[in-house]
């Protein structure tokens, strides 16, 4: 029973108007409606088929400068009445925040200005359970058929998701967006020496079904990535150059994103505080946040407060150009919103990145490896060892040992450490292999020296 965009906007408008009548100075309502299907197979048999539709309403109100947020999946008349009543009651409990408020009305975008970013593929919703199972089976079979050593898997899963969201604010903003994703992942497991097993995976995810990598290709790549881990071992502790493959590089870039968010800045919780206009990375580093990329995972026509989406340069050739701000954090810092408000389905507003990319350099990843005499090529990291306040970074890593420009043997159970400020400044090579399949994305890059702790 899905709602159409007009009906969602109507519902949002009704909630906003009732909240205003009951005393809200500002009311902003989001309505979400989504459906998903996921089919997981294992060893050639279906293991889990999950299918559901879900919807919810989130509300943020202000009475003067007192703020409250409510959320419900109970869309019955009683559920909606309580959503509004609770919000107003809680707002009375909050205390006036001089910086609270919505964006200036002149900043709000109009529906006619919202670009079509081609985020919705009707074919995605057309995949039924049988077809999803078929695709997952193909992918798993390709992985298992690739090499006789692959006798077990954690399964292969095909997932489709489609969602619509509407935002209505008492400031007059009305917008609705919709989007789809399809993804496929395969997770083989192989036996290694000493009773250990090695688990690996590969996945593809796209807005459009037809843009997905083929099931066989995903399965074969998953098999390759799992087999190459066989025999992984520790190496001695030392200072070495470290190359991050795009998966590991993306995870470093995610840390950078968390440190340029306005909330982290005004809370004095980021090592990048007071660093605008200064050098924060090597000249090879340019980072952008671009919500306008067609068919990209993090794209959106307007931000969580209704401001028109725009591309922002965060770091340009090593210099910190901009933080990422919503209206609130911009006011706190005496700056202007960068249209990076992100409204969670729960109704609350914070800062969020969109497509946050380290722009590609000119070198092929193979060239970067070949030009490294000795070092660690990192393909995955583990743990949460990052302190945004100081930039201190220390995480578990696994990957491959580089000797004379060649990947030699797999490495696991080591950590790599270096303060993020130093890490970004020591980037001395950036690859040309940016894959925007994730909203935070980075190409291969090399850090000239990090501390590796192992044996």
């Amino acid at each position: 029973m899905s709602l159409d965009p007009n009906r969602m906007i109507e519902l949002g408008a009704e909630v906003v108007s009732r909240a205003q009548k009951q005393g809200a100075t500002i009311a902003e309502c989001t309505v979400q409606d989504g459906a998903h299907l996921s089919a997981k197979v294992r060893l050639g048999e279906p293991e889990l088929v999950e299918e559901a539709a879900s919807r919810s309403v989130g509300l943020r109100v202000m009475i003067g400068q007192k703020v409250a947020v409510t959320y419900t999946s109970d869309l019955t008349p009683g559920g909606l009445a309580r959503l509004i009543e609770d919000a107003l009651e809680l707002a009375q409990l909050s205390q006036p925040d001089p910086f609270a408020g919505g964006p200036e009305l002149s900043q709000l975008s109009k529906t006619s200005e919202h670009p079509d970013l081609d985020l919705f593929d009707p074919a995605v919703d057309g995949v039924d359970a049988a077809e999803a199972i078929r695709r997952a089976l193909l992918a798993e079979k390709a992985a298992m058929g690739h090499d006789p050593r692959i006798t077990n898997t954690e399964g292969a899963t095909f997932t489709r998701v489609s969602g619509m969201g509407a935002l209505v604010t008492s400031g007059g903003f009305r917008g609705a967006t919709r989007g789809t994703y399809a993804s496929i992942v395969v997770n083989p497991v192989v036996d290694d020496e000493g009773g250990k097993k090695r688990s690996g995976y590969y996945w593809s995810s796209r807005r459009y079904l037809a843009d997905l990598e083929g099931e066989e290709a995903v399965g074969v790549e998953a098999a390759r990535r799992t087999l190459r881990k066989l025999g992984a071992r520790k190496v001695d502790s030392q200072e070495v150059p470290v190359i991050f493959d795009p998966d590991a590089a993306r995870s470093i870039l995610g840390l950078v994103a968390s440190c340029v968010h306005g909330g982290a800045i005004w809370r004095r919780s980021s090592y990048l505080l007071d660093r605008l206009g200064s050098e924060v990375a090597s000249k090879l580093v340019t980072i952008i946040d671009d919500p306008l990329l067609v068919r990209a995972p993090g794209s959106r026509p307007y931000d969580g407060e209704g401001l028109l989406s725009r591309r922002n340069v965060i770091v340009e050739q090593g210099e910190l150009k901009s933080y990422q701000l919503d209206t609130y954090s911009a006011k706190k810092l005496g700056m202007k919103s960068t249209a990076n408000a992100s409204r969670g389905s729960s109704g609350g507003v914070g800062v969020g990145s969109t497509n946050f990319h380290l722009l590609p350099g000119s070198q092929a990843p193979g060239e970067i490896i070949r030009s490294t005499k000795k070092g660690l090529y990192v393909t995955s990291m583990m743990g949460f060892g990052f302190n945004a306040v100081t930039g201190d970074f220390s995480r578990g890593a696994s990957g491959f040992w580089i000797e004379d420009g060649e990947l030699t043997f797999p490495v696991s159970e080591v950590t790599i450490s270096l303060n993020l400020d130093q890490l970004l400044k020591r980037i001395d090579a950036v690859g040309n292999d940016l894959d925007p399949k994730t909203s935070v994305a980075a190409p291969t890059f090399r850090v000239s020296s990090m501390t590796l702790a192992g044996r």
Partner: protein
Amino acid sequence: MTSYSVAMATRYVAPFGSQGAEPVDPETVRKLLTIALSKGGSYADLFFEYSASGSYSYDEGILKSAGRAVTLGLGVRVMKGDATGYAYVEDLSLDAMKRAAQTAANIASGATHWTAPQFVTPSLASRYAVRELSLDMPGVDKRALLERADKRAREKDSRIVRVDASLSEELREVLIATSDGKLVHDSQPLLRFSVRVIAEENGKRQSGSSGGGGRMGLDYFDGRSPEWHAEEAVRQALVMLGAREAPAGELEVVLGPGDSGILLHEAVGHGLEADFNRKRTSNYTDQVGQRVASDLCTVVDDATLAFSRGAVNVDDEGNAPERAVLIEQGILRGYMHDRHSADFFRTPATGNGRRESFKSHPMPRMTNTLLLAGGDDPEEIIRSVKRGVYASHFGGGQVDISNGDFVFSLTEGYLIEDGKITAPLKGVNLIGNGPEVMRKVVMLGNDMKISDGIWTCGKDGQSVPVGVGCPTMKISALTVGGTEL
């Protein structure tokens, strides 16, 4: 139909409960299960869930925002052999529920052979009979608790430049009906309080935090005051201002009591969840009866700890958990089971089948994972270390189930030199291999402590509240991920 073992929220009541607007009766359950099994599924269950939660965030000396969320829904699961069909719905009208049952039924293809049993409601333990639910208490009381933490943190030291404190509360009501005739209700409160501060001195900046809670009401604060958490956060931030670079490489490591239980959770807990062993993807596969840790180690998963964050009266499949011994004096005794894995291993379910919400299928999950006390004096343990690291607080951890490699990140640690705790160290990761590290537990303190932490465990995208605990323990060699070679 069902009896309520804990105080009911006065304002937030599950519509499907016996006090609700539209109570679900055995007849409705029978109808839905009949549809769920109409295609020949061998087992089905219905999971009704209602959750009301509140959050209060105090920041810069004011209650900046208050929030509330109410969710409800039904998850329908149908099993046929090892295959599961799952569907959920948020609209609890009979038609919508029937459609969900129909969708889940499609995992099987055949004819039904189910006859409805007489539904029985088993009596449950009462592990969190909270007298007054936090949700029912006036908002100003909760604001006052946050104010107290804020005030104490600011007064404590002039180097504290920022304080934020938050309180969140939840009441989760579940009603579980199984095709083998169980009809179980439980009502699970959860409270969480935390304080975070930033200290600045001479251009250096550090944070400190403290938090706690459990399946409790505001009486939690009778045992541990907001001021206590504020002072603890301040202490931590100030200690960290003086932190030096941590060493890199293999060292002797002493883990302090309580929080370090995260090691057990990562190093052995996940690998002993029976789904991984059923699928033979865990490094503990086929090792029941074998030595997997030093003989000092006895590890239990204990859902019975009253009022604890990981406690449950009943799991999310209707099975009542008890205290399960996983490792006894170093020997692996058994896994943590959900219904599916228990069937596979032909063993009783251990009541570890948990799910994040009605939107998710159950899996074997931990509750409170504990390493029991040993016989050593904690001070003696520290004195026995020539050069090593003392770990007292952790930020979290992660494990690769397939080979047991795990990390956990240290947020407060110290150097041990000549048997004495000396300089504080910057946050680092510790990395090791679960089975290897458990064999290197060479001393175990007599000071077993349950962490008052606010741990949340993630698996396959599902988060559930858990607890950890352990005594002081010494590990003969663990890789410390610092920067000083």
